[in-house]
């Protein structure tokens, strides 16, 4: 059994490696094409590239000491928002999922209203409601307004992923647990969740990537995240091309690293479910 599994895995990796060469080749052609287009466009509008001025906004070395520039400061705020929001968003998602699955009518209603509101209004408007309405009422500062807004937004996706995962466990499993005299909590803990988790975790991890991207919107309420830093620098220096390309690359580095970690983790989960 184990042998067979490793052969399958080996076969898969081999196929992937073969096509990786062609993939790289195609990407190179595509990439150079894109770069050529941008450069030609810039040349036509007489854009003066000033890449040498960009690094100081990332970092400076003064008296042998490394000092972060505004872009790194902004990135850290983006990551901070991301870290708080993923935790809060998961909690919101978990509670909402359980409310939707509960026997309580008012619980289900509350969860449904929340989901419909978040799903059917633009994120930008949600942010304004948090910032201009809830912020002043509850005296929340703009950083936490940002965290709350993003959490409630991503929480709605988390809720549906968690609910779907729990529902994907066949009803007979819960019935078997109940018929053995296990309490509802024990049935959840030992039977439902362990089977739902491998289904829930990969898409849930994907939310983390979305969250980093969606968090750029907090720049409209002047939270000093990566996007706001970029805007500020451009308004002083007019280096729109260089800074936006740099900012986009920084988002890319974060989201791609996250994706790699996640797919590693996914493969690990898959292997551990295959093994048992």
């Amino acid at each position: 059994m184990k042998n067979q599994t490793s052969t399958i895995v080996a076969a898969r990796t081999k196929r992937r490696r073969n096509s990786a060469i062609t993939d790289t080749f195609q990407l190179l052609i595509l990439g150079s094409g894109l770069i050529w287009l941008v450069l030609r466009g810039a040349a036509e509008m007489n854009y003066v590239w000033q890449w040498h001025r960009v690094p100081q906004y990332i970092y400076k070395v003064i008296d042998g000491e490394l000092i972060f520039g505004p872009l790194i400061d902004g990135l850290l705020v983006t990551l901070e928002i991301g870290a708080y929001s993923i935790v809060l968003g998961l909690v919101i998602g978990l509670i909402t999922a359980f409310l939707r699955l509960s026997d309580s009518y008012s619980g289900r209603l509350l969860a449904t209203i929340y989901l419909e509101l978040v799903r059917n209004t633009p994120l930008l408007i949600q942010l304004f409601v948090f910032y201009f309405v809830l912020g002043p009422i509850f005296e929340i500062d703009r950083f936490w307004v940002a965290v709350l807004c993003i959490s409630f937004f991503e929480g709605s996706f988390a809720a549906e992923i968690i609910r779907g995962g729990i529902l994907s466990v066949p009803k007979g499993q819960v019935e078997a647990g109940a018929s053995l005299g296990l309490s509802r909590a024990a049935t959840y803990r030992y039977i439902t969740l362990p089977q739902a988790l491998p289904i829930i975790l990969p898409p849930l991890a994907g939310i983390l990537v979305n969250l980093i991207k969606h968090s750029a919107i907090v720049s409209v309420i002047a939270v000093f995240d990566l996007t706001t830093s970029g805007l500020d620098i451009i308004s002083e220096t007019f280096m729109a091309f260089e800074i936006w390309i740099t900012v986009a690359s920084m988002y890319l580095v974060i989201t791609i690293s996250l994706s790699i970690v996640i797919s590693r983790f996914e493969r690990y989960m898959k292997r551990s479910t295959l093994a048992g």
Partner: protein
Amino acid sequence: MEQMISLKHVFKYFGEFRALNDVSLEVAAGERVVVCGPSGSGKSTMIRCINRLEEHDDGEIWVSGNQLTEDVKKLTEIRKDVGMVFQQFNLFPHLSVVDNLTLAPMKARGLSKSDATELAMTYLNRVHIPEQAAKYPGQLSGGQQQRVAIARSLCMQPKIMLFDEPTSALDPEMIKEVLDVMIELAEDGMTMIVVTHEMGFAKKAANKVVFMDQGEVVESAPTEQFFSQPESDRTKLFLSQILTH
């Protein structure tokens, strides 16, 4: 004799549809009852009401001296006394065979891991597959899985065992190994209600056979009498269909 299970004028509705219509049934300690009847006649619904996987709408159900009511705390206690074996086995696919067996003894009865494992091995021996303890359900044949499911129920040391078509999902060559285990269980004096169309099993192991149709108990008689002189025409028709089948 002490009544283990007693259904008195039980009604069950799914919306407007009446799945159980004035069902009454008495099962004494150590008695084995086979329930048969056409598909959709309410057999599953009836035995699922006995461990309250379905809630009945009217009438009374008593299980080893306790009436089944809303009382949740009591319900888990009652369920520990009532084992159930499902048509689709419903083994826990993420747990090894031995973990399937030890889960409820540990988490519902509070046994230590070593005591629970010992218990598990005892019952795996009784269903003749101790060598499969470390495997996962997906690695076993259907017949083996169903025997694990029986052992899993027995690990809670129930007073009553309910079987809902335990061999219907099995390939023909595996039916016997499961029925043999059930016959041994019957010989040991377990109180059993078995929904099945295996009339050979009924003749060998049952004291009483119940025939259901359209949510009603049409006929209920000692095994011998049920097969030799059935009263109702519906029973006769059903028997002729199933025995020539």
